[in-house]
Structure formats: C-alpha cells, structure tokens
C-alpha cells in the first residue's frame, strides 16, 4: 500500500476579504451547504472556512487531476463520528479518487498567526488489494 500526502495553507484574511467582497456567492462556489452551516456566519467563520479551503486544496494535490478538476464543493470537510474532521468526496471528486484507487482520506486542520493549514493523508490501493469497507 502506498500513502499519499497533500498539504496546503490559506491566509485567513484572504477568506475574510472574499466574504466581504462577494458574500454568499463566494460561499456557494467553494463550500457545501453542510460546511457553511457548520462554520456559521460569525467572526470565526473565516478561520474555519480557510481551514476547509486548505483541506480541499490538499485533497486536490493528492488526486491526479489532468484536465479534470472537480469543483471545490465536491470535496467536503465534515465532522466525523469521533468529533474530528473527515473528508467526504462527492460526484466527480469521488469518481476520480475511485478510478485512481485512492481511499481512506484522513485530514488534520490547524490555524495560527493568521494562517490556516490542512494536511491530508490517503491510501492508494494496489490492483491486487480489495477495497476496505
């Protein structure tokens, strides 16, 4: 089994500016309704949204994109059963990962000094391995 790692950083003030300049249009373009609900519309929203944007970019760095780039909202950060963040892929993002044998995404989010970060790890299944349930 091979492991892939993707990382990304996102300045929080840039997300704040996007929310100010473009409001709901920015939100709907990048984030799922679930993410927008989770992050809320308060002073902490920009930090949480910046972490999620970094996570989406980290996932995109793991996938072999070619000409096919899934929309950001097809990569979702949601709260897992343990209370920590989890990655959920939808539509073309899920299809892309499945075709490439990439599964079991794990994400870690953080922020400090005005910057949000995300690290994502995923497993690549070899052709002889059975997918995990």
């Amino acid at each position, binding site marked *: 089994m091979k492991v892939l790692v993707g990382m990304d950083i*996102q300045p929080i003030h840039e997300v704040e500016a996007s929310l100010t*300049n473009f409001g709901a249009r920015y939100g709907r373009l990048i984030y799922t309704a679930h993410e927008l609900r989770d992050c809320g519309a308060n002073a902490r929203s920009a930090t949480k949204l910046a972490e999620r944007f970094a996570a989406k970019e980290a996932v995109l760095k793991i996938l072999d994109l070619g000409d096919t780039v899934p929309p950001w909202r097809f990569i979702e950060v949601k709260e897992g059963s343990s209370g920590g963040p989890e990655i959920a892929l939808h539509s073309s993002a899920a299809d892309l990962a499945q075709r490439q044998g990439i599964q079991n995404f794990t994400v870690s989010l953080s922020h400090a000094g005005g910057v949000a970060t995300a690290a994502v790890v995923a497993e690549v299944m070899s052709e002889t391995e059975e997918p995990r349930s």
Partner: protein
Amino acid sequence: MSSTDMKIRDVLTEHGRLPVEVETLSDTDDLYESGLTSHASVNVMLALEDTFDIEFPDSLLRKGTFESVAAIRAALASLGVSVS
C-alpha cells in the same frame, strides 16, 4: 489595449494578489507562475463575473481558464463578451 483587456488587468490588480505589477505581465505570461493562488483565482473569477455581468459555468472552472490574460480573454469570448 482593448477595454476588455484593461478591465481584465484591473480585476487582476484588485483581486489577484499578485506579487508583481500586473502591467509588467504580457498577455501570455503564466499567472500562476507569477504568483496567482487558487484562492485568488476564485476572487478573480467572481470579480470578472461582476465586471462583465456573466456567470462562469462549472466547465470553465479549471486552472487553464485563468492561467493568463489571453486565456481569460478567450474564456470571456466563449461566454459572449466582446473582446475587440
């Protein structure tokens, strides 16, 4: 320079967060190599929609659409914007 090109460059100046002066870039210079980030490209796209009263379909939401002034001009033309 056409008014469309001037508007594209104004949007890049205001929303592209490029570490270089936009006026120093040629039409074909790679904007990502010049410092355009994915997040900034989102802002550029939304500002272009406001400026030209258009909407980018999902099919155009890919890196190549925003990789240069010329590429942005071509995308706008494909959406019916006069680029002359």
